């Protein structure tokens, strides 16, 4: 399941819903991305996430389908926020449930690596001296490609 939303999410509630009444699940992994201060030596006052409505949902559904083909998952969830966020706010939640921890860990890692390079979101950081679009970094691209060279 995927969700793209402006509102915050409750991790505990989302994880509980994901595995409710499914007793085949033996392992549940999650990754939560937060707004961190990356504008040193300045301090970020806020972060705005822009996205491409329509394509975002398509891309997230696509990568979730790939993960479910590659690993045996009982359930998976991606929630990604957009709009104006503050330091420390939650941006993204990826969660994977499986019978065993190995598949749940790997699928979760794959999903966050892959969405960082394919889901059409852009971060605009605001500091005291103005607003800057955050640059993509090569390390993220390398991390995503790693899953397809194994």
């Amino acid at each position, binding site marked *: 399941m995927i969700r793209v939303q402006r509102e915050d999410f409750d991790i505990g509630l989302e994880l509980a819903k994901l595995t409710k009444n499914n007793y085949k699940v033996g392992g549940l992994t999650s990754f939560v991305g937060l707004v961190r201060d990356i504008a040193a030596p300045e301090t970020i006052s806020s972060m705005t996430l*822009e996205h*491409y409505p329509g394509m975002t949902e*398509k891309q997230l559904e696509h990568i979730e389908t790939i993960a479910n083909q590659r690993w045996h998952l009982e359930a998976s969830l991606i929630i*990604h926020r957009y709009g104006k966020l503050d330091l420390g706010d939650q941006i993204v939640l990826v969660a994977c449930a499986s019978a065993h921890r190995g598949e749940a860990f790997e699928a979760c890692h794959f999903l*966050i690596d892959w969405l*960082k390079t*394919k*889901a*059409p979101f*852009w971060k605009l950081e605001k500091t005291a001296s103005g607003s800057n679009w955050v640059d993509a970094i090569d390390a993220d691209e390398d991390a995503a490609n790693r899953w397809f060279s194994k």
Partner: protein
Amino acid sequence: MKLLYFAWIRTNLGVSEELVDVPSEINDVRALLDWLINRGESYKAAFSDLNHIRVAVNQEYVDLDHAINTGDEIAFFPPVTGG
């Protein structure tokens, strides 16, 4: 066709979307970019380095040699930075 711009491409051009009629010989993404660059200095600056541009046609990633048609939705944006 409908063109969409995101992130710094949108802010540099000062427009988020526009409907354009292009000459019939403009039949792939590369030709469309060449045509756009001739529309003014802001377009020329935005599309000067294609290494920093990603393109989606009808919400799917494509290469520069991808064919385009009249009814397409074509989006130009920088490498993504979500997550």
